[in-house]
Each structure stands twice: as structure tokens, then as C-alpha cells.
């Protein structure tokens, strides 16, 4: 077999292969990361059912949809900052007050957005804050009363730009 002459054509072919290989090497870890992220992200960002959202807190206690008003914009342009206001009808006395408030998200990677602990010294069970929302979803404000019962209100929010950009 004659000695293989490294021709111009061979040289270009070799360069093309090498550059493909090199680019694959460079991007491979990136792809792996993205895959892992979308896998976990998608799994996390599916919409939870109402039971999944409230059951960890309510367990077997009484739950009613009354006495809570939850105000969120129905269309939030920016999921990074959504103003949220909630008010719970309660005399806030020693005998009857709101002891805990849970803000629960249907789609965020972490379902519990915030927990508040209140007491009779608050005088009024009313809280405003600003939340992050990862996409269009339902938000639940769940309040635990001092007698152990739970009351809640839900609100649908359409979010144009999700807070967790990487996992939609």
C-alpha cells in the first residue's frame, strides 16, 4: 500500500471533524446541565392539585373557603415581583385569632412561599408582601385559626414572565 499522502481535501476533512469533536466536548457539559435542569424543573413546575397544596398543613383539620380575602393582580406582567395583599376576618383577641398564615403556590419549585405567625397583639390579620411566581397559576392563602380550624381563599394569576426563567 502506497504511503497515504495527506492531501488538501484530507486536511479540510480532518479539520472539520476535529472542530466538531471539540465543539461537542465544549458543549457536552452544558447540555447535560440543561437536561438535568429541565428534567427537575419540569417535574417541579407542573401544576399541583389543591389537595397537594394544602394537605401538608391542614392534615385532618376542618377547612373552609370563607373569611379570607386575597388580592393579587389577575395579570402580572413580571413574575419576579407580584404584590399580594390578604385580609382575614378575625377579631384577633386572645380567645379567637389567626395564628398562622401560609401562602402556597401551585407552580413554584418551592410550594410554600411564606409562612407568617400572628397573634392577638397584631390587632388585625392583614398582611401585604410581594411574591415571586413561576408562571400562570393559582395562589392559596391558608390561615390557621387559634381553634385549630383552617380557612382559605384562592386566586388565579396570569403571569407573562415567569420568575424562574430557567424552568419556565
Amino acid at each position, binding site marked *: 500500500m502506497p504511503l497515504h499522502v495527506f492531501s488538501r481535501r484530507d486536511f479540510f476533512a480532518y479539520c472539520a471533524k476535529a472542530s466538531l469533536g471539540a465543539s461537542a466536548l465544549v458543549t457536552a457539559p452544558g447540555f447535560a446541565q440543561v437536561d438535568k435542569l429541565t428534567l427537575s424543573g419540569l417535574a417541579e413546575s407542573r401544576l399541583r392539585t389543591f389537595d397537594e397544596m394544602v394537605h401538608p398543613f391542614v392534615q385532618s383539620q376542618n377547612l373552609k373557603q370563607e373569611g379570607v380575602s386575597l388580592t393579587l393582580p389577575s395579570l402580572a406582567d413580571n413574575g419576579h415581583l407580584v404584590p399580594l395583599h390578604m385580609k382575614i376576618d378575625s377579631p384577633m383577641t386572645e380567645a379567637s385569632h389567626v395564628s398562622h398564615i401560609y401562602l402556597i403556590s401551585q407552580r413554584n419549585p418551592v410550594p410554600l412561599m411564606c409562612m407568617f405567625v400572628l397573634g392577638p397583639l397584631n390587632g388585625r390579620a392583614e398582611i*401585604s*408582601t*410581594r411574591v415571586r411566581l413561576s408562571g400562570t397559576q393559582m395562589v392559596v392563602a391558608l390561615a390557621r385559626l387559634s381553634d385549630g380550624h383552617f380557612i382559605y381563599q384562592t386566586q388565579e394569576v396570569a403571569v407573562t414572565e415567569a420568575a424562574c426563567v430557567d424552568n419556565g
Partner: protein
Amino acid sequence: MSNARIQLPPRILEGDVFKVRLLINHPMDSGFLRDINGVLIKRNVIRQLICTLNNQEVFRAEPTTGIAANPLFEFYLRAVKSGELYFRWVDDKASIGELRHPLNVWLASSSGAPKP
């Protein structure tokens, strides 16, 4: 290091229920976003915020990643007597933020000095 600002009504009468607005400067990094180089930013959110009035706990919040950056908390307190509002918050890096603010409660009947 994070700092905070508080806003109270200008004049609080005894027995009033007044609004407290607390704005904390904190990035509240959720741990899901990447910086400009594609490196994941580590989660760093405020885990716990406790408000005490005269050494008695009156309000507590335990945020997670679901609270926006530079968190704002508005809540109500009942004015019983003057004292000191003390806020203390801890984040994932275990750095502690504190804010002290005097609370002057005025007697409902007179326009005199705040009730001691």
C-alpha cells in the same frame, strides 16, 4: 450585609391598630437563576424574620424562595404602650440583619407627651 427601612404612622394613639411597613434590602437569590456566565447563583434567602415589641414576639415571617427580592412586609400592631420595635432576620448564609426603631404611643385624650 443587608439593611432595612421601616415606616410607621406619624402619630400613634393608645389603643390604635397601626400599620408597620418593613422593607429589607436583600437579593433573595432563589437558587434557580444563572448569572451572566451561566453559573448557578446559590440560594440565599431570608429564612426567618422576627419582630419583637418590648422583648415580646409580635410578628414572625418565614419566607422561602417565593418572596421577591428586597422583601416588603406590611402588617398591623396594636398600640399598647411605648417601647422599642426590634426586627431580626437571618438568611441562608447565616448573616443576621437587625433593625431597632422606637415606638412612641400617645395618650388618646391629650396632645401631651408620649405615654412612658
